[in-house]
């Protein structure tokens, strides 16, 4: 019975994920506390939140081939939404401090619904995805793609950055929203209990995001995304209009970035327009590239690895982190273009093939003389055609 379940890949995956979740929810944090590295638990929680954003990037870039340099927008929208909710948990009639410092005496109408938790939770998901869907619709309908799409997303990022930076009155401009001392269900946000809650939320959020992305990419829909990535005009001649598909995945990806932003903000204690710094959105790409684009696990591992690398290295050599990050990106792109997980998977398959040469499945191509002849012929043809 058990062996039969284990033989099914789906169940193997579920069991493996369950195991990892269990470790992350119990043993790993305890171990870190035991060896006096308790603060790393907080970091892990934040980086798992970033992993959710990385999944979103992988969905649109790794699978669909759209390189967004503007995901900081969605991250910030989610972050600001939750931060305002936390700041608004005050006795009736009181306003968050920064409002009075800026001469605002009444809560602006657009912030009013954010005192409600259900509204905020919906907003964290819906606002980023609506912004993404509206922008995406006009961009994709006009068949803007490739590098033009990337430039456009970066331009949008800069617009949003300046917009948020300049709104001193309504969102505290450059200083952003500080949530550390805000209250959440009667406890200070920075307290161990609330932080542990957000750690768990990040963990389960990550698992949920993984599940959604797995579902989206696993079937026919995912194969269509790959087809769009590899030859979008051809997809049209197969009878699909890529616009709707691209708008949809961009919106999902933006929602994931929004959730990540909310979870991250609650744990880092602050959200400022710096979340829309050009370099942060590029870092998201780097996580996915390092981990392995087009592999969901790769996106998560990349986010965790790069960020832990960042925190360890910047403790040791604060001035050099950026060089390390840039160098690592160059090495990955040059030496393992499909990222660590992609590389590991490829190596594993090659090793498996070599050790099972005689099995009559895939490696047949190399053995069958006929096939081999055909293959070299085409290669010759290709070469002579150039």
């Amino acid at each position, binding site marked *: 019975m058990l062996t039969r379940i284990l033989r099914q890949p789906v169940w193997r995956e579920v069991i493996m994920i369950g195991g990892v979740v269990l470790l992350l929810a119990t043993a790993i944090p305890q171990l870190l506390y035991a060896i006096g590295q308790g603060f790393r638990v907080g970091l892990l929680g934040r980086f798992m939140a970033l992993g959710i954003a990385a999944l979103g990037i992988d969905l649109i870039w790794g699978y669909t081939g759209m390189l967004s340099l503007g995901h900081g927008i969605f991250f910030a929208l989610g972050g600001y939404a939750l931060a305002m909710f936390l700041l608004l948990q005050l006795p009736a009639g009181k306003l968050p401090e920064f409002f009075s410092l800026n001469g605002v005496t009444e809560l602006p109408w657009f912030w009013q619904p954010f005192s409600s938790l259900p509204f905020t939770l919906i907003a964290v998901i819906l606002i980023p995805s609506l912004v993404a869907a509206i922008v995406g619709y006009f961009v994709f309908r006009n068949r803007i793609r490739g590098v033009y799409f990337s430039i456009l997303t970066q331009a949008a990022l800069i617009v949003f950055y300046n917009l948020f930076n300049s709104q001193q009155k309504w969102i505290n401009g450059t200083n952003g929203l500080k949530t550390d001392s805000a209250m959440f269900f009667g406890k200070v946000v920075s307290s161990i209990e609330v932080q542990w809650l957000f750690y768990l939320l990040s963990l389960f959020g990550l698992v949920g995001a993984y599940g959604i992305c797995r579902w989206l990419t696993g079937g026919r829909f995912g194969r269509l995304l*790959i087809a769009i990535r590899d030859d979008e005009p051809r997809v049209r*001649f197969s*009878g699909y*209009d890529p616009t*709707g*598909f691209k708008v949809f995945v961009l919106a999902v990806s933006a929602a994931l970035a929004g959730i990540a932003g909310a979870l991250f903000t609650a744990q880092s204690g602050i959200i400022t327009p710096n979340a829309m710094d050009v370099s942060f959105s590029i870092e998201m790409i780097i996580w996915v590239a390092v981990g392995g684009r087009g592999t969901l696990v790769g996106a998560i591992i990349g986010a965790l690895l790069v960020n832990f690398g960042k925190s360890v290295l910047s403790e040791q050599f604060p001035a050099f982190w950026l060089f390390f990050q840039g160098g690592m990106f160059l090495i990955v792109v040059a030496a393992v273009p499909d990222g660590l997980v992609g590389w590991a998977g490829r190596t594993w398959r090659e090793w498996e093939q070599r050790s099972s040469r005689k099995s009559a499945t895939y490696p047949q191509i190399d053995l069958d003389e006929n096939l081999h002849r*055909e293959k070299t012929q085409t290669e010759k043809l290709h070469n002579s055609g150039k």
Partner: protein
Amino acid sequence: MERILNIQELTVSFDGFKALNDLNFSLDRGELRVVIGPNGAGKTTFLDVITGKVKPTKGYVQFKDRSLRNFSEDQISRLGIGRKFQTPRIYQKLTVRQNIELAGNPHKSLFGTLLGKKSPTNQRQVADLLGVVGLEPKADILAELLSHGEKQRLEIGMLVAQSPELLLVDEPVAGLTDEETAEVGQLLLNLSADHSIIVIEHDMEFVRQLSAGLGSQPENRVTVLHEGHVLCEGSMAEVQKDPQVIAVYLGSEEQH
């Protein structure tokens, strides 16, 4: 006989250069037509206009008495026109089976693709098609690993999977061996039993095979395109005798 395709006074100009120039053309339902013409005659552009990739500067294309001017590529494809490209365009990172499944998916909307169930008929159709194009043994390997000839056949399979009424096939045997060429010819002739087909071709031997038709079928007509215009139309024998055609096209064959 019902006309499936009717093209009148079609002109396409690229910055003043007329790739198609006042072209008239029509195709009967069930017909297989071979279109030949020297390089740059406008053959690919001709297919580009029918499939909506290029909009006509003047004139119109009617498919089943409906003008295609305001339809996009994907809508035209769903109306029942399938196209094979000159260089095989398949999805390299998907398996052979997945390529055919995507093309043959009956639900092409966003949510249809995401939530639509695979029907048993659908799966049988995919299996049948794999057999028709002779790729059953390679159904589950990545398309990028196929030989050039197999890619050509796969793309024809993807085309048929869309269940179109009209197939547009652009130079399907470019770069194939003689044996593979004959196979593709046979495949197209078999398909012509229940599809209308336009085949664009360069290879005269192949054109002869197609125009001869299958044993009991009548001979298929050939259209000669030259400088964006129909030069001549008729049976292979008639076309070969036409002095204009000899001058511009068949004559040059001897020089090769």
